């Protein structure tokens, strides 16, 4: 039995925006796999809800004319994993969200909900960071698009303004064309798990596969919000592939990450994992790009 004060079901995006304005304190409900748990825990008990789950217009993946890959915010994890466009262009996102919870959660949980929660451990987030994704929000003043790094304001806080809902996640063509990625989720078990640390790396190699044209490293649970290893990326962009490159990258990310001590894992362990995960994910991404670290 859930303690819900009232439930408003949106009939369209415009209706959702109107409901958001009418009930500014209401909680937005998509798949519910996080919100219902918070109600049960008492954190969101007795609140009003605006359900946007029925808005099919926010479901699905398509390519815009300029090659931008658009993922509707209500698209479920299992849909993303199985989607041919995702598999063709950013397969690693499909792999990453296939590590969320278990099959039932992946069928109901949405990528919009996963990002709007603002948690650092979200399996989609580090990969979306690595792909330079953009967040589309629709509100009373129309549509607003911003880079995902700006969308995250702090732990559990995202830049959803009064009257707004997130409507899609966009990945421009220049972000994915020529890139291959790899995500490693480190958990204490292989399913039904929240990442202890997660690392998503994508690389673009030169035509001769000898040089690292570009490198993007996204981390979850390495800071209060998902982050990019900016210093490491700058340091190794244009580096020649070599046998010890992965080790160097692993060591370098320690300058970028700021994990904390908690009862779930010590800071030392997380630092060690950041290093190992970056190294391993980088190796796999290079392998997928046809490069060799010899």
């Amino acid at each position, binding site marked *: 039995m859930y303690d819900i004060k009232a439930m408003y079901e949106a009939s369209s995006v415009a209706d959702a925006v109107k409901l958001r304005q009418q009930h500014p304190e209401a909680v937005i409900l998509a798949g519910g796999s996080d919100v219902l748990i918070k109600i049960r825990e008492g954190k969101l008990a007795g609140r009003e809800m605006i359900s946007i789950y029925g808005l099919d217009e926010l479901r699905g993946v398509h390519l815009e004319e300029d090659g931008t890959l658009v993922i509707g915010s209500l698209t479920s994890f299992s849909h993303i994993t199985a989607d041919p466009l995702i598999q063709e262009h950013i397969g690693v996102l499909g792999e990453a969200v296939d590590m969320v919870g278990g099959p039932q959660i992946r069928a109901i949980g949405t990528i919009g909900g996963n990002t709007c929660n603002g948690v650092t451990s979200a399996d989609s987030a580090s990969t979306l960071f690595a792909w330079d994704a953009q967040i589309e929000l629709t509100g009373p003043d129309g549509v607003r698009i911003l880079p995902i790094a700006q969308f995250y304001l702090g732990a559990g806080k995202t830049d959803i303004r009064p009257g707004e809902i997130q409507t899609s996640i966009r990945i421009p063509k220049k972000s994915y064309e020529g890139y291959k990625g790899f995500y490693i989720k480190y958990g204490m*078990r292989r399913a039904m798990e929240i990442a202890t640390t997660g690392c998503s790396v994508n690389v673009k190699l030169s035509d001769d596969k000898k040089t690292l044209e570009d490198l993007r490293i996204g981390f979850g649970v390495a800071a209060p919000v998902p982050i990019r290893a900016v210093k490491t990326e700058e340091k190794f962009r244009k580096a020649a592939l070599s046998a010890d490159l992965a080790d160097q990258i692993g060591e370098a990310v320690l300058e970028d990450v700021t994990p904390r001590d908690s009862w779930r894992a010590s800071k030392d362990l997380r630092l060690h994992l950041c290093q190992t995960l970056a190294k391993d994910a980088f190796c796999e991404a290079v392998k997928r790009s046809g490069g060799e670290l010899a």
Partner: protein
Amino acid sequence: MKIGQSIPRVDSYDKATGRTKYTDDLCDQNALVAKILHANVAHAIVKSVDTSEAEDMPGVIGVFTCFDVPECTFPTAGHPWSTVESHQDVMDRHLLTKHVRYYGDDVAAVVAEDEVSAVRALEKIHVEYEVLPFVLDVQEAMKDGAPQLHERFKNNILAHTDIRRGNLAEAIKEPGLTRIEGWYDTPTVQHCHIENACCYAYMENGRVNVVASTQIPHITRRCIGQALGIDWGMVRLVKPYIGGGFGDKQDALYEPLCAWLSMQVGGRLVKLECTREETFQNCRVRHAIRYHLISWVRKDGTLVGRKLECYSNQGAYASHGHGVCAKGMNAVPQIYPCPNIECDSWTVFTNRQVAGAMRGYGMPQVTFALESHVDDICQALGLDPLEYRRKTTMPLGYVDAFSKNELYSDSFNQTLDVGSAYIEYEKKRKEYSHQTGRFRRGVGLSVFWYNTAVWPISLETSACRMVMNQDGSIQLQVGETEIGQGADTAFAQMAAETLGISIDKVHVVSCQDTDVTPYGTGAYASRQTYAAGMAVRGCAEAFKQHILEVAFPYTRMQPYLMDIVDDQIIRTTDGRVLMSLGDLAKQKLYDLENCEHLTMEKTAQLKTNAYSFGCGFAEVEVDLEMCQVKVLKLINVHDAGTLVNPALARAQVQGGMSMGLGYALSEKMLYDEKTGRLLNGNLLDYKLSTTMDHPHLEARFVQNAEPTSAYGTKALGEPPVLPVAPAVRNAILQATGVGLDELPMRPHLLYEKFKEAHLI
């Protein structure tokens, strides 16, 4: 032969299709809902409770506090009652407590029209505490000056027992001995049965009726009577199908409180269902036990002396108490006989969750300590762990002086043969002996020991009733409960075997109702097929004899010339079918001159127990940098005597191995040192292993029929958990050279230990 057939479970169709009704399914939807206010401090005296605001909340029927409950104390352990006072379970519980002894202890309760109203009212109860210092660690709790939980147990020591044999001080003076010492630590873990603890209660004709998810209906009825201070006959307890128990439900949980709350609201129907978080925080857990082992051995491995200390963390209340720790201690000198021993065990109260029974009852803990220690001995002396165990474990023909248990067959060697062949022990041991690099493999093993039932520690009894229908089929009733393990199916096979009827003619009454079910102590230990088997056989033998006597006037044959075979009364001299059992039952029931309702009831009292042994092997791959262990191969080999149903036996072993894997690698209840609060009491943060974490679980058997058992059976319910953690630990030891002396062997521990060993 009905014994030894892998027939489908008698309850499989309904369970697979969702038709089976559990406690919550049976409860009327209009039931009032009870919710408990749990203390948010670890140790305190309740000064006052202000309920006025809560009472005014909409939907609230009543608010009850620790100042309202009966003064009588009661025990909760699922042991048979003892008429000998010194052997009775400790009575240290009130329905709600004025002395909070752990974070989450029960202070007040709300009865409301629905769950939301009840939860909202809980927030409006205001409790004033006098906060006391608390202690979580078992050895800290024993020190002078530590916070005291129960007045009459000085230094928080619930019990201390010891074993002294030979002369250890003299024996270890022998020149040339090697001394091996280790501390081994096991964690607090929870059973994680699928169905949370759940019960409901109502009054009918002045008696209180309780329907509960319990393993021990008759015992729980008695505990309710004791808790409420009413005659035991004024309580009726009904146990429907239950979604697992693993020992957690071998305790009176909230049944007494629920019964009392119903009585406070005029006997109205009240439901009390634990959330998963309450199941973690407020039901029972496995004892965390710390062991200190020192062994003195000769160069060839001969054990000259051994010292063992066991420190068992009981948590806040006595529950099953010292029996759990003592069982492990008593096993050690039996598994590896040694002429000079000094063993001590202490069970100690701390401000943590209450530890009770859990599958294995102290043996998974001590098996980890002992079998880790044995590999440490082998490593110190350069001996092969498999050969060492073959030479030093309990020999064939061993008789234990206390229990009179006898090892009738060479179970250790026979099961070790099967396990080592499956894992290719010798080949891999050699192959993995010199490794370098990030990924390292190893193989390891553990033996295990188990007692089937609880005789002679306490009463062992089971009673069985059989009632024949007009078609020659029977209803079978025992007090031993189906808790998911397949007991009903085994009982059906046993009854069919002895009576000479087909299995589909045996209708096992799965539900126990203390008003009608013959007395039995329930499902615990690994006693179902052994203890209830004796009652079923005793009843079936007597029933058959009675039926053949009843058949005389209809067949004109002497009873000793007849038998029942395949549902027919036959003449044994020539095999001729005389009449069907169905015809006999009909004739007799409707006989105008001399009718009779065909029934039989027998009580079995056990004066034996049975050893049940075996071993486990594991092959692992360790990723040093990721601090992760992957179990590549895992096998358990059991000598559980005759298998009644091999398919169910295999499933039982696989379930236990799964529990053992979680114990080995991931499960641990974590506590906040500052507040005493349980940090990870939910299924997300408590890392129960999932199907994705499991390798193939190989279960094999050696079947030496147990001579003292009605159907040749002995323990299989609990032992499967035992060898997994030590086998995995010893495999990691071979792979990395690092002996991990703490469970679970999760990445946190591996990271620390690998760093210490300069592996990363």
